[in-house]
């Protein structure tokens, strides 16, 4: 391939009966390959192919000026509070916490049959709607813009649950991301990351000691 053969077989020389001279121009590509291999190695070692994924998040403002009237109150029946604790366990309660009864605080895990199952059940209506929408999108019946518009309309619908995520200091960053991930998987539109209160800490302690903590406190 890299050889160019030129033969000086001019008409005139033929007559003269001189010897045919074949010049072969052969370009050796081996050093070129060597250099390219070096460059490829360099690029493979020093660069990364994938861009990092991100998760977008909107936090409520810390502004103290916001009055209570501006805050949208969450209906207790729709709210679920997740308390992320150490050791990859989650406690949750629906609506208002019951400080007297320790068993009102339920324990679950990040496994597929834990938190996700619970949230999918709670958000069943919206999840099935989103599934339908995804099917439609796959069959190219609707455009991407329509899809995201309708999806957000379903997610922020009237009777969808609201999840409040509160993490204790023992929780890790991974726990927080996992919890936020579940919100996406379970199509939960409204969720808030909140700071943990004394009441929540009390609830967790009470649950971990099976009510003994509350009794000690009341004595």
């Amino acid at each position: 391939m890299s050889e160019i053969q030129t033969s000086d077989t001019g008409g005139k020389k033929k007559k003269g009966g001189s010897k045919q001279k074949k010049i072969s121009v052969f370009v050796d590509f081996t050093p070129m390959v060597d250099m390219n291999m070096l460059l490829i190695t360099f690029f493979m070692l020093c660069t990364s192919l994938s861009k990092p994924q991100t998760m977008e998040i909107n936090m409520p403002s810390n502004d103290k000026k916001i009055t209570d009237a501006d805050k949208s109150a969450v209906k207790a029946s729709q709210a679920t509070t997740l308390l992320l604790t150490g050791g990859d366990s989650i406690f949750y309660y629906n609506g208002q916490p019951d400080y007297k009864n320790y068993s009102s605080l339920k324990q679950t895990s990040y496994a597929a049959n834990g938190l996700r199952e619970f949230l999918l059940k709670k958000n069943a209506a919206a999840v099935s709607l989103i599934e339908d929408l995804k099917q439609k999108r796959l069959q190219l019946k609707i455009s991407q813009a329509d899809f995201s518009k309708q999806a957000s309309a379903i997610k922020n619908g009237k009777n969808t649950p609201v999840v409040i995520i509160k993490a204790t200091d023992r929780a890790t960053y991974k726990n927080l991301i996992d919890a936020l991930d579940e919100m996406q998987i379970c199509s939960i539109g409204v969720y808030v990351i909140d700071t943990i209160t004394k009441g929540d800490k009390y609830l967790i302690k009470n649950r971990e000691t099976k009510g003994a903590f509350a009794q000690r406190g009341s004595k």
Partner: protein
Amino acid sequence: MSKVKVARKSTRIDMTAMSDVTVLLLTFFMLTSTFVKKEPVQVVTPASVSEIKIPDINILSILIDPKGKVFLSLDKQSDMVETLTSVGKEYGITFTPGEIQKFKIQKTFGVPMKSMKAFLALSSDEQDKTLKDLGIPTDKTDNQFKIWIKNARSTNKDLRIAIKADQNTPYKVIKDVMSSLQDLRENRYNLITSLKKVSAK
């Protein structure tokens, strides 16, 4: 006995095809990949199902290591210089052009302001060694992190904040960073994660 004639063949291999392939590969790598940023600490980001890609420019990334040390990086060198001078002004420190030049070439920075001058005087090898033990203070009494963010924001209005934290970072550190951001009314930011495939059911 008949002699087996061994045909004399040239051992020359035509490398043209090989060269073609390597050039193609090289082009692919050059076009698709991005250079790895030098980071003072190793950070393993948690996985998530989110598939949003991070934008290329105007990123202020906050790097948090498992021990809770906080580092910052800006992608534009001009922003870095302006931020350094304005932060220096708040602490009453002026930097010489030489120090600014040294600061400019850093990929990630995170040094308490009072030791900034001493740090910039070090050689770049020594800087790499010491940087991982430093970090920007985020505690309530001396929240330099907040001042850095505030000044970075005032130099570039289009900055997007991205938090890259290790998966084993205690939530307490994240909480401090997040509440500092909230105090500055930075309510939209990105959390950098790696990709995980999960089915809904």
